[in-house]
């Protein structure tokens, strides 16, 4: 009896070790690239172009890599601001438009409602990579090529099917009685939407905003094709210039610094709003 219990106990301890052992090793594998880039980016001058072993600065902490990064394009601030303008306005416009559409699809009756909703969702089946060429020509015709606003409109459009779906579900989950009560009190339409319903669908808004922000911040191919002048480049496009280098040599310190600048907002947004992010992920997955 005690023999059996002992062996059971031993198996349990072994199980705990095996679990935490393998999980820690995996965690290390997933975290190492981040840590190496982050620590490595603070190495001074020449040190930044030698292998990051060890990754932390051995000749003292320095911002040389970030200064080097600043010499590319129109300066790192300008490009960070470009990226922020595009990502924040994509998030804002997506939220407003999908809020209205989600409300319309959830609470109103109009002809062809289901057809229009299916049409909206059907665009999810079509890869946007296949419409780059006509978009490029259309934006040129609308004088929106090489403009952050044109790029934002494209990003908002790509974000809409998922976002309208999320918002419609969010409104569907709000009890009808709340609306009825507000109507009785004489609150209607836009006022009803912004004053009464908006606070109730806030979690959905958070999810939509996070995905719009992150997708716009990280998008590369459309930005590469639609932006042609240096000053308008978003961060990922700027970084291709850094990656190509000057006179045949690449400033690896600037690459590390650029990667850190691009990654940090994503990590912060995710860690702060993880709950809403995961909700969007599983909603998309279960759809």
């Amino acid at each position: 009896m005690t023999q059996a219990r002992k062996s059971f106990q031993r198996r349990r301890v072994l199980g705990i070790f095996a679990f935490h052992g393998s999980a820690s090793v995996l965690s290390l594998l997933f975290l190492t690239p981040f840590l190496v880039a982050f620590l490595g980016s603070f190495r001074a001058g020449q040190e930044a172009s030698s292998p990051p072993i060890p990754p932390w600065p051995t000749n003292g902490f320095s911002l040389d890599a970030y200064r080097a990064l600043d010499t590319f394009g129109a300066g790192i601030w300008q490009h960070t601001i470009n990226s922020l303008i595009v990502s924040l306005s994509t998030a804002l416009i997506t939220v407003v438009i999908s809020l209205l559409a989600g409300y319309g699809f959830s609470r109103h009756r109009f002809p062809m409602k289901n057809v229009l909703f299916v049409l909206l969702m059907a665009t999810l089946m079509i890869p946007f990579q296949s419409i780059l060429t006509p978009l490029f020509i259309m934006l040129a015709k609308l004088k929106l090529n090489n403009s952050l606003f044109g790029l934002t409109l494209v990003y908002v459009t790509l974000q809409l099917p998922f976002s309208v779906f999320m918002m419609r579900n969010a409104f569907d989950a709000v009890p009808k009685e709340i609306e009825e009560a507000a109507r009785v009190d004489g609150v209607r339409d836009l006022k009803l939407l912004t004053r009464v319903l908006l606070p109730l669908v806030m979690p959905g808004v958070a999810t939509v905003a996070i995905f719009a922000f992150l997708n716009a911040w990280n998008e590369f191919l459309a930005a590469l094709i639609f932006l042609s002048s240096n000053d308008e480049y978003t961060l990922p496009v700027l970084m291709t210039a850094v990656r190509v280098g000057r006179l045949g040599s690449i400033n690896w310190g600037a690459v590390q610094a650029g990667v850190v600048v691009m990654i940090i907002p994503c990590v912060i947004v995710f860690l702060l709003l993880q709950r809403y992010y995961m909700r969007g992920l599983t909603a998309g997955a279960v759809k």
Partner: protein
Amino acid sequence: MTATSTSGKTRPQASAHRPNRRRKEALKGLFFIAPAMILVLVFFVFPVLFTAWMSLHKWPLLGAPTWIGLRNYTRMFSDERFYSALGFTAYYTAIVTVVIFAFAFPMAMLVEQKRRAVPIYRTFFFLPVVVGLASASLLWTWLSNVDSGFFSPLLEQLGLTSGRINLLATFDLAFWTIIAMVVWKIAGFTMIILLTGLQSIPAELVEATRIDGAKRWQRFRYLTLPLMRKTLALALVLSVTGSILAFDQFYIMTSGGPQNRMISIVYYIVNQSFVSFNLGYGAALSIAVLVILLVLSLAQFWLLRDKGERA
């Protein structure tokens, strides 16, 4: 679904203006969805139709397009480079999907357990998912660099290789480096999808088979896998469609090399449309990709369909 909103309560005094009210209600609804519909029609639906139209033309960047019927398509079917792009994309998709699943499934089973620190591990595994593919590619370009990077010097110092190997110089090494990067970046995402499937398996069922004496492997094979059919299909389709559209990693990490052997199908479209400015031919290639993806979406519906059986 929304029928209840108007039919729920009938107010006697309202019935007199009913048709009028209904029209007003419809107008309001259309007003709310108008911005979304207009954007999607202008910047998505119209471009799709426009792509099809363009694909029937010789369409230079400057100057007038000329109608050439299906000649872009006949050209495509005899285009050596189109086939090699297609072949490479298929090869990449097959390999990367298998490797992603090989990591993501054990990871999902790891973080499904109810043990201490599981949320922390899950966050760590997932962290690369939230950064952009372009950022990840750039980061790994540096890490894989032979002179200033991390991997080759590390392997050398650990004595695993004699001298430093250039991970991006030959096709096979560069290919597996990119696979490693993509797995690092994506495995956490697939893990979460699989996790939702694992968590939907009723605990009593697992307990019952355990009491019946089913071995760990038997439980996995005859309980877990069949119950996860839908989740697996979804994760599979997401991985396959994502991989077919791969571009960033090849553009940033190897510029399509070595020997231009890493030109994926989207990369080839970009080259034809925006480097050689054969916009009409690029559109025809786009239609090909669109058809492939549509077929996959239909396959997804077929895989995810309810078979009428209920477990």
